[in-house]
Structures are given as C-alpha cells and as structure tokens.
C-alpha cells in the first residue's frame, strides 16, 4: 500500500499531464494558411482562434488540476478539462457571422460527414469508462475508495480503488462531457455556411471543428479510462498477491485467480487506452473531401 500510495499519484499526474501537453500540439492544429481572399482568411482565422483558445483553456485547467493535487480532482480532472475545452470551442463556433437581410440563399448540400474514426473512439471510450465506473462501484468497499476482502479470522484491503467516491463524480463528469460534446457537434452542424464560392474552406472548417470537439472529448475520456484501469488493476493484482501470501482461505491459485486475471486485463485496458489516446491526438482530417461537381441551376 505504501509504495502504491506514492507511485499512484505520480502516475496519475503523468497520465494527466503528458497527454494533455500533447493535446496542446494536436488540438491546436488549424487549417493550412493558403487563403485565397478575405472571406477565406477570416474563416481560417476563426478556426485557428478556436483551436488556440480551447488549447489555452485546457492548459490553464490542467495547471489548476495539478496544483490542487488531491485525489478527487485528479480523478475527474481530465474529464473536466475536456468539458472546458469543448465548451470554449463551441462558444467560439457560435461567433461565426449569421445570415442577414431579408433574402437568404443556401446550397442544397449535406454537411461533410464527421470523422468516423474519432466518432467511434469517442463513443467507445465513453462506454468503456462507464463500464469501469460501474464495475468499480460494485467491487469496492463501503468507503468507496478501497478494495477489501474479509474472511473468518482476517481481512485484507488495498486502496486507492475506483469505488463510488471516484466513480460517481467521474460518471457525472462524463455525462456533462457527453452533453457538452453533443451541443458542440450540433452547433458546428447548424453554423451558417459560407457563400458557395467558399464551399471547400467551409467544409474544411467544419470538419476541423468537429474533429477538435471529438478529439478533446475522446482523449480526456481515454486518459480517465487509463487512470481508472491502472488504479483498479493495481489494487486487484496486489489483493490477489496479499491473499496468497497470507494463505487466506479465499485465495485462489493462478491462473484461476479472477482478481489477478482481472487486474492484468485492466493493465491491458490501460495500455490500449494510452495507445488509442496518442493515436487519436494525431488522427482526424483537417480537410473535407472535395465537393462533388455542382449541378446546374435550373430555375434559380
């Protein structure tokens, strides 16, 4: 317990800080600067500003979370940072010019599709975190922060463990992140299009904005998944070892020790989440596919 008590917060700090520093570089990507005219330049400027502001908000929030340094802020910190980054990007998305005048024109063309890979990673990571939280709440001791096993004449405990004390706030933060991301995606979809002459830059800006939102949401969730899986896996694996060393009647021999197997499986989940978070930071197009050949106008 003593080694884990020292190492776990340090690893949690790294788990929060390293990916979020990488986010600074990845989420901050804008559109290429090859603007053709003022409308084009203004659109690219807006995309760049949204990226920089959301990254800035994420960095400040990370510093605050790390400064607090307590276990609960560290547990929900990445999700909170994700929420703030998504909200900042969404508010800036609402600052695009709106249609004016009494005669208004719109092209009959669907919006570019959201990056499928990022969408899947976001949905998958949110579902994984929900499962981890629910599992943690089921297995934890009544105090909501440790794992305990009792048997006739003895008991063993390990902490920290993602019980209700960490999982419940994390589930609430995840729900807020889901709602914020949904609001952000709807805002990007409803943002008025640029004029038909700037169809490509409009589609590029939209895809970049969508990717930024999904990336921020997915990475902050994956970091939480990795942290929760690591903490839960460590507690389970150490509990299995403790029970065997103390020759507890409830101890099981490997490979049929479910606590040890589950602990190792959670280490696998942690590794997968970290790798996926790194891949996600680099994934996602910043350009929409070129629009199809325009149909001829008939009556208009």
């Amino acid at each position, binding site marked *: 317990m003593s080694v884990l008590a020292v190492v776990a917060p340090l690893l949690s700090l790294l788990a929060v800080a390293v990916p979020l520093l990488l986010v600074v570089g990845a989420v901050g990507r804008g559109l290429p600067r090859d603007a053709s005219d003022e409308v084009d330049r203004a659109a690219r400027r807006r995309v760049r500003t949204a990226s920089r502001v959301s990254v800035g908000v994420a960095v400040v929030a990370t510093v605050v979370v790390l400064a607090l340094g307590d276990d609960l802020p560290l547990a929900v910190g990445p999700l909170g940072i994700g929420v703030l980054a998504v909200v900042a990007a969404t508010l800036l998305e609402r600052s695009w010019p709106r249609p004016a005048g*009494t005669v208004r024109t719109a092209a009959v063309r669907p*919006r570019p599709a959201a990056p499928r890979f990022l969408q899947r990673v976001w949905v998958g990571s949110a579902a994984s975190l929900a499962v981890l939280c629910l599992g943690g709440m089921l297995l934890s001791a009544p105090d909501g922060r440790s794992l305990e096993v009792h048997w006739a004449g003895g008991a063993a405990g390990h902490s920290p463990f993602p019980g209700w004390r960490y999982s419940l706030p994390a589930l609430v933060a995840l729900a807020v992140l889901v709602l914020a991301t949904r609001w952000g995606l709807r805002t990007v979809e409803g943002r008025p299009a640029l004029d038909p002459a700037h169809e490509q830059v409009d589609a590029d800006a939209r895809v970049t904005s969508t990717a930024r939102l999904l990336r921020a949401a997915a990475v902050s969730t994956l970091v939480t998944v990795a942290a929760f899986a690591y903490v839960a896996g460590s507690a389970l694996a150490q509990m299995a070892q403790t029970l065997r060393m103390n020759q507890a009647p409830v101890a099981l021999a490997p490979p049929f020790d479910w606590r040890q197997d589950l602990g190792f499986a959670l280490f696998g989940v942690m590794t997968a989440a970290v790798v996926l978070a790194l891949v996600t930071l680099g994934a996602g197009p910043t350009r929409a596919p070129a629009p199809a050949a325009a149909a001829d106008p008939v009556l208009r």
Partner: protein
Amino acid sequence: MTVLTVDLDAAEPPYEQLRAQVAGHIATGALRPGDRLPTIRALAGDLGVATGTVARAYRELEATGLVTTRRRTGTVVASGTTAQDDTVRSAARDFAGLARRHGLTEVEAIDLVRAALRGGPGPATGR
C-alpha cells in the same frame, strides 16, 4: 449548384417557399432520387430561419411522397419520384426565361402558370 432562397418579406410563408423550391428541383431533375437534403438544423442555420420552418417544409414534402426521412440517412429524395418529361422541362425553362425578360417577379410568373393550369386567362400583371 442547387440552391434554395427564402424571401422573408414575401407574402408566401418561408416554409412554403422552401417546399415549392425543393419540389421544383425534384421536378426538373436538379435533385434526383437518393440525393440527400441538408439536415433541418443545417438548412435552418444557413438560411437563418427557425428549425421549425425547415421541419414543416420537409414534413409537407414527405406527406406528398417527394422525400423520405430516416434516422440513419436523414432526408433523401424519394425513389419513386421522377423528373418531368424533357419537353415539359424545356418549356418550363423557356417560360422562366421569357418571364425574366419581361420583368415578371417569381410570384407573378407562377400565378400565370397556375392560372393556365386551371384553364383561366391568367392574372393581369400590369406590365
């Protein structure tokens, strides 16, 4: 590029303007079966109108069988719809050009067509 225009000052409500234009694009073949229409939120955002306006236009188009709406694919031009005969389409194009040359507004031109379809002499345009 196929476009939709809404005149907020026109006597015709915006949803009807949208419905008529989409129906017209389908009739002329500018929109073909399977073509996806923008989502309600997207079109409302582009035109700066309420989502309810676009939703009503789409609902009326769906009621007449011109479009279908499904959860996964969104609103698409229905498969049973076909563009009008080339001769009729060409005549419509010619008439639109003639109306433009004579300075008729869209409403006046459509009123003439409507009157012709009903067998009357057509409204006086005052031009």
